[in-house]
């Protein structure tokens, strides 16, 4: 019995540890796009993955950074160990202790401090800053691995070699190096793995147009992570797993490792030459690529533009596009505000545009240079006045509404009001958005107030309404609304219209409604930054995106509604062109609003009330 419990316990632990990874691997072979359904086995995502240039570029960057940073870190770390080894005990131990601190330090602290350092020294963010950062955080791991090998050395062997006539350098390579080589190799592999894995530090030190796999994956979170990424994550996991196996097994099998070592030793010169050549080639490609005279630096949401459009723009105008991505308005803002990178064009959401205008970050647009703005639906230009009162700073790009998605087989009454989310009949079948402004929008609209209210009494009422509703909800979620509704796991959910079109295609029983009390019309618009180094090119870029054929390409790629009326006319599929979900007639609805920036003080009030709701 005791034995059984022991085994059961161990089994449970390992199931918990490995279940997430197994799920990921299984989903990477799922032919259905949604997580809720098993559509049969496929390797389609793996082949798609290798066809995707952006992902392949990120993969190349990741491997390049991992190799170069770990090679340089290994070199520096090993040399440091030689110096440390010759020091007296006290300073040596002090330095070794200091070496451990960066490893224990939170990544976010390391990342932010490196970013600040680079800014204060006026570095341009890009590949070189990522490399410097990775080398920096890799060195301690190399020292950690190499130093014990030095401690194991017989101090006399080096002297014996000198005694027999060897020069210090010859003695090091002939006598010391073979003995510490296992440590150097494991230090290198450790550094390589750490570099491969890193997200946070890379995130803070990367510049426009450079992405590693981890930052690339993260920029996709807004639109939902694509199955290609499951495939990629599976490959990364397997790679790291194999590397760790190599690191851990080699010291255990002494004989084998020795053979390995002597092999490496025999070909060490060739290895070194090959490594140097590789670094030089990659380095020169990296140095000489993209030094065009004309460029425009674009900072956009992840997966928020058809890559083909960029190629077309470059071919037609001869202006090179440096393209960078972010995942939320809140991560974009500090990067732009700190002026760490010289971006020209950004695509923030409504309330963020207002905040950026108020903080003087945006440049007024010269609409003479953007004639295609005439293609944009005047209703949305008008709606933009909520955040850009004089329409001076922004050109709408993607738009949408928030509404109720319901399952016709589970709800038989007509749905036209937010009130249905407070109906006892659907207890445990209601899904709410897990974000403060979205949740309060629903409650404020239900009560007949403005969703941009900052009246404490109205907000208090909204809070109470949300608390009353909470027992009825199944969960507060973000993008799981889509999957859960497709999988018939809930009857009613609050959802963005862009997701709704897609869910309806997967599950025809679903219906989308904009409630009569009004709702949120969200608008993501192109803006030019005040300090943009290439303002004219930026205007050309925005004008290009407003061209009907280009707007159509982006609509088909993103699937979020476009405010470009001329582009809509070009849509071939009648169902989509006439879809009232994708293209609602804004004049038919009352009380439509767009989020505004309410100021830090009101933001705090919202957040505190939200905490009360969540903790109930």
């Amino acid at each position, binding site marked *: 019995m005791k034995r059984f419990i022991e085994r059961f316990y161990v089994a449970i632990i390992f199931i918990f540890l490995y279940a997430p990874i197994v799920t990921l691997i299984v989903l990477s072979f799922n032919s259905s796009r949604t997580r809720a359904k098993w559509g049969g086995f496929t390797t389609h995502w793996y082949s798609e993955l290798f066809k995707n240039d952006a992902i392949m570029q990120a993969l190349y960057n990741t491997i390049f950074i991992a190799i170069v940073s770990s090679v340089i870190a290994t070199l520096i770390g090993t040399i440091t160990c030689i110096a440390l080894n010759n020091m007296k005990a006290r300073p040596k131990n002090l330095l070794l202790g200091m070496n451990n601190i960066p490893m224990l330090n939170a990544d976010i602290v390391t990342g932010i401090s490196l970013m600040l350092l680079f800014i204060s020294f006026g570095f341009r963010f890009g590949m070189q800053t990522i490399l410097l950062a990775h080398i920096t955080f890799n060195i301690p791991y190399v020292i950690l691995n190499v130093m014990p090998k030095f401690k194991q050395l017989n101090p*006399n062997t080096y002297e014996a070699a000198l005694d027999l006539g060897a020069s210090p350098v010859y003695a090091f390579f002939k006598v010391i190096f073979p003995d510490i080589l296992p440590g150097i190799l494991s230090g290198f592999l450790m550094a390589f793995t750490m570099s491969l894995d890193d997200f946070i530090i890379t995130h803070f030190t990367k510049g426009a147009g450079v992405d590693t796999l981890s930052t690339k994956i993260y920029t996709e979170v807004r639109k939902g992570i694509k199955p290609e990424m499951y495939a990629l994550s599976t490959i990364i996991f397997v790679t790291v797993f194999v590397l760790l196996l190599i690191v851990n097994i080699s010291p255990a099998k002494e004989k084998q490792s020795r053979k390995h070592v002597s092999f490496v030793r025999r070909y060490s010169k060739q290895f070194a030459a090959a490594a140097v050549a590789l670094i030089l080639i990659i380095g020169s490609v990296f140095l000489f690529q993209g030094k065009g005279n004309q460029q425009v630096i674009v900072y956009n949401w992840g997966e928020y533009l058809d890559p083909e459009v960029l190629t077309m723009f470059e071919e037609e105008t001869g202006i090179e596009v440096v393209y960078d991505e972010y995942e939320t308005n809140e991560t974009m803002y500090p990067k732009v505000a700190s002026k760490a990178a010289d971006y020209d064009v950004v695509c923030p959401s409504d309330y963020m545009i207002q905040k950026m205008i108020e903080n003087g970050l945006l440049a007024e647009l010269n609409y003479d240079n953007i004639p295609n703005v005439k293609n944009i639906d005047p209703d949305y230009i008008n709606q933009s006045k909520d955040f850009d009162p004089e329409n001076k700073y922004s050109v709408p790009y993607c738009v949408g509404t928030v509404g109720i998605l319901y399952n016709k087989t589970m709800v038989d009454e007509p749905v036209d009001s937010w009130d249905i989310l407070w109906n006892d009949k659907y207890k445990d079948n209601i899904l709410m958005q897990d974000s403060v402004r979205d949740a309060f929008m629903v409650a404020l609209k239900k009560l007949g107030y403005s969703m941009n209210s900052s009246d404490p009494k109205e907000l208090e009422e909204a809070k109470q309404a949300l608390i009353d509703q909470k027992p009825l909800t199944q969960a507060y979620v973000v993008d799981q609304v889509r999957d859960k509704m497709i999988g018939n796991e809930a009857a009613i959910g609050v959802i963005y219209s862009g997701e709704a079109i897609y869910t309806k295609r997967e599950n025809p029983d679903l219906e989308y409604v904009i409630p009569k009390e009004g709702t949120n019309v969200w608008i993501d618009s192109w803006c030019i930054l005040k300090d943009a180094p290439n303002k004219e090119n930026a205007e050309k870029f925005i004008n290009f995106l407003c061209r009907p054929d280009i707007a159509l390409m982006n609509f088909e790629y993103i699937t979020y509604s476009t405010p470009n009326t001329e582009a809509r006319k070009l849509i071939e599929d009648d169902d989509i062109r006439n879809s009232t979900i994708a293209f609602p007639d804004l004049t038919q609805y009352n009380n439509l609003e767009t989020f505004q920036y309410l100021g830090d003080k009101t933001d705090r009030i919202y957040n505190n009330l939200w905490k009360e709701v969540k903790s109930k």
Partner: protein
Amino acid sequence: MANKLIDLVNITKSYGDNVVLDDLNLYIRENEFLTLLGPSGCGKTTTLRIIGGFEQPDQGKVMFDGTDITNLPPNKRQLNTVFQKYALFTHMTIAENIAFGLKLKNKSKAYIDDKIHYALKLVNLDGYENRKPDSLSGGQQQRIAIARAIVNEPKILLLDEPLGALDLKLRQDMQYELIRLKNELGITFIYVTHDQEEALTMSDTIVVMNQGYIQQIGTPEDIYNEPENAFVADFIGDSNIINATMLEDRLVSFFGAKWQCVDEGFGTNKPVDVVIRPEDVVLCKPEEGTISGEVTHIIFKGVHYEMEVMAGGFEWLVHSTIMHPVGEKVGIQVDPFNIQIMHKPESEDEEVAYVED
């Protein structure tokens, strides 16, 4: 006599506040087997490392055959070292280890092979060319270390406690082996040890050191029979060291008795130290002895008995082939030739040593 091959002139060396060598002067003649002997921390290894070039003296000069080599790095010096922990190159075969120095000198392959063969034969390890150091015993590894050093035909071989890690039997075998090697090769050996028996067995000259100072230089017989101070007397073999007063030439007084001796020139009524080796103490009937006492302890040691005799308020150490049981009353006699008179210690380093091991 042969010329001075190594001449250390006014060598001073300290680590921080710790003075390891203080104004040391020492020369080594060609073809000599010289041993630096002393307790740990006495500066003997530092002296060897300065000769080898692994340490730089703070002051003073190292002369080699008349040239100043003080600032010459170890790889440029015409001498080789055998280290205490062998320091073989573990990832190379025995042959590669031995060939290491020769390859650096760009010797031909035939010459190197010849030398490897010769050296292995010399240390009685024929046929071990392709073995790895790990597969050899401690004694075998030490002999490889010696072979690796001597194939370079150094003028001087430095040996830093080379037998320290070996067991007693092996150590004794290796001592004879080293003496044989030295005679066959005809090169100078500078040997460091804290084992006085090893030093007495092998050396032409012994340098006894303590706390950075040379205490006595001499042949093994000189050092053993005529120690110059209490430290040397105590460190070299067992001895009875007794506070005494030199009454006049050839007459010394201790434990209330007057003893005949052969030393002169210490003055009259001067405090001195007297050294008597335990094998020189003769036990006799109580009434026949200069003083008398009682046996308190006895151990059988093989070649002799080791006894402790309480006499004159002092515990005498006595070696004798005749057994006297515990409790027996005995008298003590000493031949005047075996009473060694020494000056009282002038400094701390000349006092009786307390050897750590």
